[in-house]
């Protein structure tokens, strides 16, 4: 059991800056994120895309913003719990007991949900019949590539994951790559390589087709694909892999008794607390009159939520507002030597 002042759900820019504000006012926090890296949507959706509306930063990429925020909270040595997801919350004696998917447990005064629009999960095939084989012979990520040796593998998708795995597995498996259009969004070098492998018949490349059905009798035997004009083909398959990027699912957050408005959590704008005492929501996941889904709004929300957390974490102390330019206490916390 890890005891802390605040558990932050989500390591995107909003969660990171909230952590900074907690550090500044002398609170501790633990940060949990479903992704295997820090940065949230910035790092997962647009690491290379420039952002132009961070105050005083005319232009930076999602990756640069993330790296700067990580740098900014370094003095506080907060722990990150990546590739993990907060699953259960329980309140006892005004404390929250938090359990994660990987079995970590926290005892905390406050929870700050900075979860964006939920956790990232792979987009799955739309075909119902694929569910039966999910995790066995229909896969959306690869943990052990040796299982594909000498097997027929049908890969769907046109991005880097699909292309890279088609190239990699073509060494030891019978690979078919199926994509919905002729253009690929993967790296040009990979696209070039795929075309070569297709030209020399190392892989079968089928474009303008998508999945129709998977068939088998206990174990997967084939996959049927369709074109938009209605033609269909059946391909022998031991494994079917789908790489359609990630979608965002609210997941267990929906089950914590929080008021929800569509996929967002209503909060008050004084401290961004939800309808549950000690649970705050900031960033894209929160809503209130006038809400803007901007990173800068998330920063503001995180700063105020941090002060809200202080009240529960230090009930006997009075919060005192201080400037980082002037406060020697804050400079100590930041490890600044003058």
């Amino acid at each position, binding site marked *: 059991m890890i005891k802390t002042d605040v558990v932050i759900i989500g390591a995107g820019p909003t969660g990171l800056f909230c952590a900074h504000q907690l550090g500044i006012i002398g609170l501790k926090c633990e940060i949990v994120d479903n992704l295997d890296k820090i940065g949230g*949507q910035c790092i997962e*959706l*647009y690491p290379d*895309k420039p952002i132009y509306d961070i105050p005083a930063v005319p232009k930076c990429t999602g990756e640069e913003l993330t790296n700067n925020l990580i740098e900014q909270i370094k003095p506080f040595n907060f722990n990150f719990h990546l590739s993990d997801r907060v699953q259960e919350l329980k309140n006892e004696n005004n404390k929250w007991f938090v359990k994660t998917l990987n079995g970590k447990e926290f005892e905390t005064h406050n929870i700050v949900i900075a979860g964006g*629009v*939920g956790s990232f999960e792979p*987009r799955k095939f*739309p075909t119902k019949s694929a569910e039966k084989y999910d995790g066995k012979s229909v896969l959306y990520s690869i943990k052990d590539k040796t299982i594909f040796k000498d097997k027929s593998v049908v890969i769907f*998708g*046109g*991005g880097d994951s699909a292309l890279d795995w088609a190239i990699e597995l073509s060494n030891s498996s019978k690979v078919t790559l199926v*994509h*919905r*259009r002729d*253009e690929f*969004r993967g790296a040009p070098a990979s696209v070039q390589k795929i075309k070569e492998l297709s030209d020399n018949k190392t892989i079968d490349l089928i474009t303008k087709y*998508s999945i129709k059905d998977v068939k088998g009798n206990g174990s997967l035997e084939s996959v049927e694909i369709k074109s*938009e004009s209605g033609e269909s083909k059946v391909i022998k398959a031991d494994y079917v892999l789908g790489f*359609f*990027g*990630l*979608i*965002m*699912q609210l997941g267990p957050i929906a089950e914590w008794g929080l008021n929800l408005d569509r*996929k967002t959590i209503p909060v008050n704008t004084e401290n961004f607390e939800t309808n549950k005492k000690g649970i705050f929501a900031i960033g*894209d996941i929160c809503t209130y009159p006038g809400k803007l*889904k901007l990173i800068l709004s998330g920063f503001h929300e995180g700063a105020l939520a941090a002060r809200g957390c202080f009240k529960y974490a230090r009930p006997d102390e009075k919060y005192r507002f201080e400037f980082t330019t002037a406060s020697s206490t804050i400079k100590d916390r930041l490890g600044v030597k003058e």
Partner: protein
Amino acid sequence: MAKIKYIEFNGTEHEADVANGLSVMEGAIQNDIPGIDADCGGGMSCATCHVYINDDEWFKKLPEKEMGEDDMLDQAFEPKSNSRLSCQLIVSEDLDGLTVHMPEKQV
């Protein structure tokens, strides 16, 4: 201003007057029309405002896809050749009378 018709997968029709300059996605969100999620809020970085333009004439009339829209559509639920991201369709008088069909689901 343009009148846009949104048809849910189950056939339910909604009509909205959408101001010029807004996207077809925003027209749906602001009028509480279900079937368009718009998780990323219009940044062309998810694929949850996906619609079909079933009328071929209309599809051709719409502004061409920008780079990146088709990449994003690869990641949508059941994309077809008449798929568009509704956040990329900016409303003007030219779009008056447009009908968009929503997919079975967005995520």
